[in-house]
């Protein structure tokens, strides 16, 4: 055993939640309400965990439906019946007929029905949804079929962290799940590394919830931005351990072939999601909204034409549309607020930017950008690989005893709403399972294997720094499997990746627990990228839709209805197996 790591703790619980963002928080609360002894581990610190803690934030709650009688900021806003909203989202997002958004759970009908309860729950914790007059600021976007509630989210993750402690959830910060423990196909807990002390802990549980976010460190967020690879849109703490940990344990993973590409500000640290309720979500009804314009000042999505051009999907279609504009010599692209009423500008500055990322406001001030007279340049940006653990409506994965929620599941469409609603379902069902389950068995040999894996980078002398290797792996990914890919580029990427895996990964060294965390993250990133490349080779068609899902093959440029199916990847005795499945 190396100098820095030692195993000194063995912790048992009914339910183990991995990840302390919105989904993990909600799962832990429901598990403890279900009468279960509950432990939550977080690689960062719960106070700064997930999308909320990372300040990429959230100031809008999408896909909700305020019950009739709710006091709305705009009293003239008339909302169609809930069934109509659900049908509209399913159609516009291509969930039903188009099969663009490939996910087996009836996500939208569930979150639209259950989302408002989560609004009320957050209000109970002191999150401010209401305006000074007691009304809810709700925006309805018919072209999206989406109803969004805005809220003042600053410090929200602190409130969640306080609530976890108050309710008696045992929280372990700086605790990285290295791998799950399994026994006869049942998940029995996890082996973890304390990224500051180097201590290894074994957590034994009857049920486990995986809520570790998306595979956010697969691409170089901006291919031109080489200085710091952790500047990203999604929280960079999420290394892809959702797919990697799930896969190694034998869980079924889906959507690993899809890139997640969205519009973002040119400066990678200016979040853009929070502007969504205002920007680029034009509606059928004329209302002032920020405009996406080309270099000639022409609006790219004029009101009313949105539906025809982008098939009603928000992010999907941006790539070809912007490329078309570029060919016409109309790039770059900007976000234009100059025509907006002062009230809306202030709203964006004070609420959207402040909550979505205070650093964005600082960026605007530093650069002297005033939305009243200046344009904000936007560009396409890689968010993540869409890979996630396959779950059913109960948030159960393909392994008994394992549940998953939030971005970890690839069910990313409803963002915060999906995380909370499916976090809730994961917690309820994990608690139910745990109260009926017998004590799980720890496979000692497996614990030893995971410890060896943790030990390895500590034993390497004069090796590679983990970040150096991560940079190379992500640059291979971005170069050969970026917006577009083909069998030739994918095979070349796999060739380089297997070389890196065989010859470089074993020589990654870690001089302290922090570097050890980075080394173990590189292992996850390489596995997630390998899944992406192999799955991309399998899916012989092109497809885009949903929420910036892109799978664009130069050699198979058309969509193939035979591929209106999920591509499931599973670890079978060390072989990466792909299964085409109806959904």
């Amino acid at each position, binding site marked *: 055993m190396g100098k820095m790591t030692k195993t000194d703790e063995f912790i048992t619980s009914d339910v183990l939640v991995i990840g302390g963002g919105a989904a993990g928080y909600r799962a832990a609360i429901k598990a403890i309400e279900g009468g279960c002894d509950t432990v939550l581990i977080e690689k960062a*610190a719960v106070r*700064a*965990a997930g999308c909320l803690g990372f300040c990429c934030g959230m100031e809008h709650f999408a896909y909700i439906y305020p019950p009739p009688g709710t006091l709305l900021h705009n009293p003239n806003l008339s909302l169609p019946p809930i069934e109509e909203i659900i049908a509209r989202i399913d159609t516009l997002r291509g969930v039903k007929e188009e099969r663009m958004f490939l996910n087996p759970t009836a996500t939208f009908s569930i979150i639209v029905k259950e989302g408002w309860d989560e609004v009320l729950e957050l209000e109970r914790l002191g999150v401010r949804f209401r305006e000074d007059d007691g009304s809810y600021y709700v925006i309805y976007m018919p072209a999206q079929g989406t109803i969004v509630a805005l809220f003042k989210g600053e410090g929200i993750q602190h409130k969640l962290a306080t609530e976890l402690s108050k309710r008696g959830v045992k929280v372990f910060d700086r605790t990285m799940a290295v791998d799950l423990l399994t026994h006869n196909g049942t998940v029995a807990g996890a082996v973890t590394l304390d990224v500051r002390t180097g201590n290894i802990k074994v957590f034994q549980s009857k049920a486990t919830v995986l809520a570790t976010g998306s595979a956010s460190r697969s691409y170089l967020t901006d291919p031109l931005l080489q200085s710091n690879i952790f500047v990203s849109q999604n*929280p960079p703490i999420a290394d892809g351990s959702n797919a990697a940990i799930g896969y190694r344990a034998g869980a079924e993973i889906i959507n690993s072939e899809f890139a997640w590409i969205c519009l973002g500000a040119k400066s990678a*640290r200016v979040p853009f999601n929070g502007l969504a309720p205002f920007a680029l979500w034009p509606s059928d009804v004329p209302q002032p909204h920020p405009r996406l314009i080309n270099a000639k000042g022409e609006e790219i999505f004029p009101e009313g034409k949105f539906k025809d051009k982008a098939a009603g999907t928000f992010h999907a279609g941006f790539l070809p549309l912007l490329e078309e504009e570029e060919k016409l010599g109309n790039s770059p692209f900007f976000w234009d607020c100059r025509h907006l009423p002062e009230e809306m500008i202030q709203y964006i500055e004070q609420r959207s930017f402040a909550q979505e*990322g205070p*650093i964005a406001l600082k960026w605007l001030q530093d*650069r002297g950008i005033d939305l009243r007279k200046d344009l904000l340049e936007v560009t396409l940006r890689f968010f993540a690989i869409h890979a996630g653990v396959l779950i059913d409506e109960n948030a159960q994965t393909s392994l008994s005893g394992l549940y998953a929620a939030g971005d970890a599941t690839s069910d990313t469409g409803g963002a915060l709403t999906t995380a909370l609603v499916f976090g809730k379902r994961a917690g309820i069902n994990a608690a139910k399972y745990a109260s009926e389950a017998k004590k799980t068995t720890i496979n000692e040999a497996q614990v030893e294997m995971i410890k060896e894996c943790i030990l390895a980078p500590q034993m390497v002398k004069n090796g590679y720094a983990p970040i150096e290797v991560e940079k190379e792996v992500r640059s291979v990914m971005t170069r050969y499997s970026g917006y577009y890919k083909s069998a030739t580029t994918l095979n070349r990427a796999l060739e380089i990746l297997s070389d890196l895996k065989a010859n470089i990964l074993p020589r990654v060294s870690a001089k302290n627990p*922090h570097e050890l965390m980075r080394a173990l993250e590189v292992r996850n990133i390489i596995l997630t990228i390998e899944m992406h490349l192999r799955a991309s080779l399998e899916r012989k068609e092109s497809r885009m839709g949903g929420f910036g899902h892109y799978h664009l093959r130069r050699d198979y440029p058309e969509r193939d209805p035979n591929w209106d199916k999920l591509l499931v990847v599973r670890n079978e005795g060390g072989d990466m197996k792909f299964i085409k499945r109806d959904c």
Partner: protein
Amino acid sequence: MSIKINYSKCNACGICYNDCPMDVIAWDEEKNIPFIKYPDECCYCGNCELYCPKKAIAILLPATLY
């Protein structure tokens, strides 16, 4: 360096050290103060600057994020 701690203002409360999601900020046990150990791993989330009760931390956004 992208993050600066003003030690004349810092009261060593440990909030920045406890909250930094990327573990960029470490603790100097001898001097009992926080210090920036991994500046290259900063993701500019803003947590340290935002929640420092003494306003002792300032983030300088790098030119590459122009």
